[in-house]
């Protein structure tokens, strides 16, 4: 076997690793932000205009099924060696995940809550901003976590066309049958993902104080839905 492991490679390349890490993070996070910015209005529209949701969902799942490499290659003709070549496909993936979560999140607002909000005189935009969106936060963040983690993993595919952060370590390692950069790259990618995930969990913690307040010990009465739907047997 021509591969071997060299510890010394790691300290020798701290600078490179730092740079790649940052680049990787950048390439993974920008799509998440862009995806969110698109998914929010799109999701809101889909909730309002129910007929739109099915086609949008179909479209996003087609996007989701596109092989990332093919997208990169097609895009490189238009966007060259800019980050866009990676960012656009990843934005599309993020979008596919997030639209669903935004819609689910907005729909997770209990009917009686939105009814009550309307009845208290919340107008359309206010209701969206002050009631629907905050309540949707946990579900949206769940989607963001999935998207972020999978983006961090997907950025590496960009290395096959020369654009990526930590993915370069893989290409380099493969070309030289050198496992040290490959393993370091894998470890750093996973570490980055875990860290990014932790940040999102923290964000959720900050944004949703109500979910972390423990349940009181007082008995909560029987599921009201049962009483509401029973009607006459």
């Amino acid at each position, binding site marked *: 076997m021509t591969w*071997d492991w060299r510890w010394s490679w790691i300290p020798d390349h701290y600078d490179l690793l730092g740079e790649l890490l940052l680049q990787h993070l950048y390439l993974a996070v920008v799509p998440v932000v862009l995806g969110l910015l698109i998914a929010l209005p799109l999701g809101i529209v889909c909730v309002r205009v129910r007929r739109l949701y099915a086609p949008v969902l179909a479209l996003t799942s087609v996007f989701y099924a596109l092989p990332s490499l093919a997208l990169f290659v097609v895009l490189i003709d*238009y966007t060259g*060696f800019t980050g866009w*070549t990676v*960012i656009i496909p990843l934005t599309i993936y993020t979008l596919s995940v997030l639209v669903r979560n935004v819609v689910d999140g907005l729909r997770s607002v209990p009917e009686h809550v939105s009814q009550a909000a309307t009845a208290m005189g919340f107008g359309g935009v206010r209701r969206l901003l002050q009631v629907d969106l905050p309540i949707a936060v946990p579900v949206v963040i769940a989607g963001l976590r999935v998207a972020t983690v999978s983006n961090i993993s997907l950025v590496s595919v960009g290395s096959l066309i*020369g654009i990526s952060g930590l993915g370069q370590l893989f290409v*380099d390692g*493969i*070309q*030289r049958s050198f496992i040290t950069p490959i393993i370091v790259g894998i470890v750093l990618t996973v570490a980055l993902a875990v860290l990014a995930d932790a940040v999102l969990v923290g964000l959720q913690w900050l944004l949703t104080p109500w979910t972390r307040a423990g349940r009181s010990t007082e008995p909560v009465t029987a599921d009201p839905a049962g009483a509401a739907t029973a009607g006459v047997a």
Partner: protein
Amino acid sequence: GGDDSSGDDPLNSSGGGNEVVVGSANFPENVLLGEIYAQALEAKDIKVKRQLNIGAREVIYSQIEKGSLTVLPEYNGALLAYLDKAATATTSEEVDAALKQKLPSGLELLNPAEAEDKDSVAVTKETAAKYKLKTLDDLKPVAKDLVIGGPPEFKTRAQGIVGLKEKYGVEFKEFKSLDVAGPITVSALKKGDVQAANLFTTDPAVAENDFVALEDTKGLFSAQNVTPLVNKEGVNDTAKEALNGVSAKLDTATLAELVKKVVSDKQDVDAVAKEWLTTAGLS
């Protein structure tokens, strides 16, 4: 994203028009050459952006045409074969002459180096012994039982499967797409997934694995002098001088030695490049 990658694009880290963008294909020797060019340019205080390890020539070439890349380490024969599938030139001189005509006006080839890295068809020692193979001609009677591997583009280009058939009448049982003379090709050859493979003459793996590179008696594989290809608008005369300086000093033995340092000794390309440039007095 737009269809050009000019400097006002926030995601394009290239600072401005005066920056030289050095690209390379995705195999270690080419990456190393790119790095050598880059450092040679930097030695002349030219701002350089590296865009190494991109992909096959087929991908890179369009980028230098557009100006996304401005400098590429090229191999003159291969480039000609790419630009003119019917090209017949094989010697360095013929190739360079033919290239001058084919090259688009925006691009310019600088001076070729003496260093050559030719394509070759290699087989294992055992295969060579079994079929008594020494030259490509020897393949003719046995090729129908053999599978050949190489980079995907090897299948369709003249200096590949096509030329093998035309010049030597050699037809393999099957072609398998592998990587550009990289570990996958080497591994496939070693494991017997393919019995013949397209490897480079500078590849240290050939020696390390006792592969036998079959002799190209009919000059199928053209001269492959390492030559800087530049986009005229992207480089000034100082830069051209620097790149020609590299060509002047680089010979085949040196190149093979440098590649070995990177691939076998796992040294970093930038260190290897720097060391050589220093010894060559180019830094």
